[in-house]
């Protein structure tokens, strides 16, 4: 029904490393990647990595961030006769309205249909679908909780701890854990305000909160021809305030039996949802090996490269082909699980002062190289890290034959990964990979607060290096001055005297 080469150009409605990642695959497929220049970073690195750059249109009001402005983006695609829009992750990637507007204007939205986005984005409907698919779930509110009184009522039914989440949420924003009755008022309001500012929708719902679970997610790929397969799981339990920091595939917590159960559940849910495109089913796994449906993400994930490393597949390519109406090129049986992969997010953050965002210019950059090492980066030397955007500037992905080998290789790669000008999470990543509990796989989402003595890895005698460096700098600064000249010629002196 659809022409195989329908998509000839893609407008990338995103920035940074994911814009570059999408451009790479597009170019490989013979499709023109088009980047969007914004006034916030007109000289960004990603603009040099696309085949064509278009300027974000002028607007009357600038209150909505560029990559969240549906009408301007649709206008851009139309004006430049671009076939498709890839939203990347974050921003409008899970916005049904955006998908609807694209479809209305005859632009292919690379992602699921608006209906699926809508259903999965509405955490209440998503849970209904999961129930139909017989996927295990935690108790909570049936639908959004619109008043504080309602929230208090539900808390009485399900007890504490509970979690308040944004209906339109994702990525940890608009989420609050409530442990006792007295906290519910403040937490309800702050979740709601944060949801409003992050997703433009203040609605929240409530769920029973599982203490210290593992976070396991299953990658789903489904085409328009009714084929639904999974590409194994990813473990994303290394989190801080619900923000993932380090991910791996496969998960050390699953044996073959549990792996089958959890991937079957994900496929069953996707089928029940009539899912099409790339998607991720997120689960919480408790200590007894019981897992519960959390949510389904209808976009490409930040951590998709670990799946690519163990399966040898290009997920962005699959996503584009599906959007083009093509059949999946592989069957479930053909999906390999080869070795182990880890992804470290390199964020511009000051880990030692509470992971606070760190801005500045990249003054020098050295990247690790070698077999099984991949760096997806959004910056180069001279790039400015500004407070306007997310703090993630690069991802280090490492692949090796097994978990021990990949931990070792990743540590080596992190030692070679050097960035000057800003503080990054590299010392944190090292600390995780050196941690015994992480290495033996018995970690959960409380890992950072409970199991890490220090959030940064300190090398032997490192503080003595710092101390000595400070002392030597001080000595240099206050060195007595021996070589000095104070001569003056007569011409200048005459001038000085005459000017008195």
């Amino acid at each position, binding site marked *: 029904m659809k022409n195989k080469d329908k998509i000839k150009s893609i407008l990338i409605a995103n920035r940074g490393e994911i814009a570059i990642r999408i451009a790479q695959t597009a170019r490989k497929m013979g499709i023109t990647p088009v980047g969007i220049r914004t006034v916030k970073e007109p000289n960004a690195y990603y603009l040099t990595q696309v085949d064509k750059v278009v300027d974000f249109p002028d607007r009357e009001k600038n209150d909505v961030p560029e990559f969240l402005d549906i009408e301007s983006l649709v206008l851009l695609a139309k004006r430049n006769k671009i076939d498709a829009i890839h939203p990347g992750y974050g921003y409008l990637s899970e916005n049904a309205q955006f998908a609807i507007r694209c479809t209305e204007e005859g632009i292919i939205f690379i992602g699921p249909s608006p209906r699926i986005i809508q259903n999965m984005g509405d955490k209440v409907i998503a849970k209904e679908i999961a129930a139909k698919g017989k996927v295990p779930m935690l108790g909570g509110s049936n639908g959004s909780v619109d008043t504080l009184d309602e929230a208090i009522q539900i808390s009485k039914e399900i007890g504490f701890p509970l979690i308040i989440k944004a209906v339109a949420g994702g990525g940890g924003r608009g989420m609050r854990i409530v442990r006792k009755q007295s906290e519910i008022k403040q937490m309800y309001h702050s979740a709601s305000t944060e949801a409003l500012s992050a997703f433009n929708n203040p609605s929240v719902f409530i769920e029973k909160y599982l203490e210290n679970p593992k976070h396991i997610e299953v990658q789903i790929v489904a085409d328009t021809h009714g084929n639904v397969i999974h590409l194994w799981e990813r473990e994303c339990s290394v989190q801080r305030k619900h923000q993932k920091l380090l991910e791996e595939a496969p998960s050390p917590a699953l044996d073959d039996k549990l792996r089958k159960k959890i991937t079957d559940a994900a496929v069953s849910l996707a089928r029940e949802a009539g899912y099409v495109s790339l998607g991720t089913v997120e689960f919480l796994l408790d200590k007894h090996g019981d897992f519960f449906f959390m949510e389904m993400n209808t976009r490409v994930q930040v951590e998709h490269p670990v799946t690519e490393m163990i399966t040898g597949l290009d997920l962005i390519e699959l996503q584009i082909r599906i959007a083009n109406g093509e059949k999946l090129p592989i069957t479930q049986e053909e999906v390999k699980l080869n070795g182990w992969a880890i992804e470290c997010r390199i964020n511009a953050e000051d880990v030692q002062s509470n992971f606070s965002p760190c801005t500045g210019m990249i003054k020098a950059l050295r990247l690790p190289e070698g077999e099984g090492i991949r760096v997806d980066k959004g910056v180069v030397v001279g790039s400015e890290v500004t407070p306007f955007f997310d703090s993630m500037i690069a991802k280090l992905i490492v692949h090796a034959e097994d978990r021990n080998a990949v931990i070792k290789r990743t540590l080596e790669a992190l030692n070679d990964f050097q960035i000057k000008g800003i503080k990054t999470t590299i010392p944190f990543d090292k600390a995780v990979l050196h941690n015994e509990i992480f290495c033996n796989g018995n970690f959960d989402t409380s890992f950072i607060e409970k199991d890490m003595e220090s959030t940064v890895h300190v090398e032997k005698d490192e503080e003595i290096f710092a101390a000595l460096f400070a002392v030597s700098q001080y000595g240099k600064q206050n060195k*007595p001055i021996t070589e000095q000249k104070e001569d003056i010629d007569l011409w200048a002196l005459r001038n000085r005297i005459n000017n008195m």
Partner: protein
Amino acid sequence: MKKSYEQFSARRELLDKQYDETYVQKQHKRGKLTAHERILLLFDEGTFEETDAYIPPAEASFGKTVKAFGDGVVTGFGRVNGRLVYAYSQDFNVLGGSLGSRHAAKIVKIQDMALKTGSPVVGLIDSGGARIQEGITGLNGYGDIFKRNVYSSGVIPQISVIMGPAAGGAVYSPALTDFIFMTADTSYMFVTGPNVVKEVLNETVSTEDLGGASVHSTKSGVADFVYSDDENTILGVKRLLSFLPLNNMENPPLIKSDDTAKRVEDQLRNIVPEDPDKPYDVKEIVELLVDNGDYMEVAENHASNIFTAFARMDGQVVGIVANQPKVMAGTLDIDSSIKGARFINICNSFNIPIITLEDVPGFLPGTDQEHDGIIRHGAKLLYAYTFASVPKITVILRKAYGGAYIVMNSKGIGGDFVFAWPTAEIAVMGPDGAIAILYRKELAESEDPVMLKKELTQKYREEVTNPYIADEKGFIDEVIDPAMTRSKIITSLKALDRKTEYRPKRKHGNMPL
């Protein structure tokens, strides 16, 4: 031993006894070094010669006459990095460092000798104020000191270092000198203390909040430098002296470093954002321009929208004046105009070339500024720049708009060399303002005013603000590659080395005060 020597030694012993361990500990317990310890830190080892060490206090006209040596101040001279410097150091341990007539006479002697020999004076201040016991005789001593402060002004560098209290009349000697240092937490300066403030205004304020180092280095701008303790304060004084000549006839010391004059800095092309509304830190640029990235900032935390610092370029001392886009977009206001003017005056007095790095959107608008006299105060900066006869070099980094552009050492007021980076925008006003005035009607009638405004802005930038127009008219000497700025400035400094420029003879100019 001969009898005459016996008396000599006995006197010496008595003096040593005055400065015994309990004397030292008394001051150390306050977190302060003694007057002598401070002096010894300042001078090169073994070079300090003390004067008038045995002078006792004058007779009290009220209360008891105290017996002590030195009358609460240590005076003398020595070498700082090999150069002759005179100094006095008030001794809080002897009569609270209070200023009696002989105390004042000792300081005056030092001031006179320094002026006769063309040498800097460093005053280390730690004093309870005028000695009440001596009545008006002590007080008169301040007048003697002030007079010499003023006579020496612009002839020899005078540096005041507040390392303890300085209250009442005592604050005006520092105020008349070129630079004021303060030691954090243990020094304060005010004309009237917290007790009087409480009595007169019924306002409760602590010593620190009224006149501590943090107040004077931020709000009032009285202190040019603040350091964390006595030792670092004195290291700071020594560092400052290394940028200053001994007097107004000499050049500041030339200290060659291993930094090359022709250093090309590619990074300079990246620091100034293309977006004219985006801030950046001008200090990053300064660091890349000067020898070894090393500079000494003056009044760092006061009126930070203007940056002033001493540094060296190919060994030669320069004074740098830069608009700081990071603070208030680098606009000029009252405080920054005064700060800049004062710094330029000092540079001109002491033969220090002035390098101006310009990125100024204009003067700060508003009723506060207008009512407080931005016209008069802004004129100070204009006057100082125009009057200065030392070499003056300007590099326009980005914005150079309107009156502020003229003020910041433009060609018109006597800039010797004016360079511009390709990012420079030179015009009567920025595009937004200009287009709003010139195309008011068109914009109002337009169907798509946003688009029209964008087109006009683009046109304005191309036809009006770009630096090549100013270049062709000769208002700037050259549009330069930012990476080459250091070598351009150094070459220009060398070309201006023997610059001679006469001003008409006069008693003194009439700077708008």
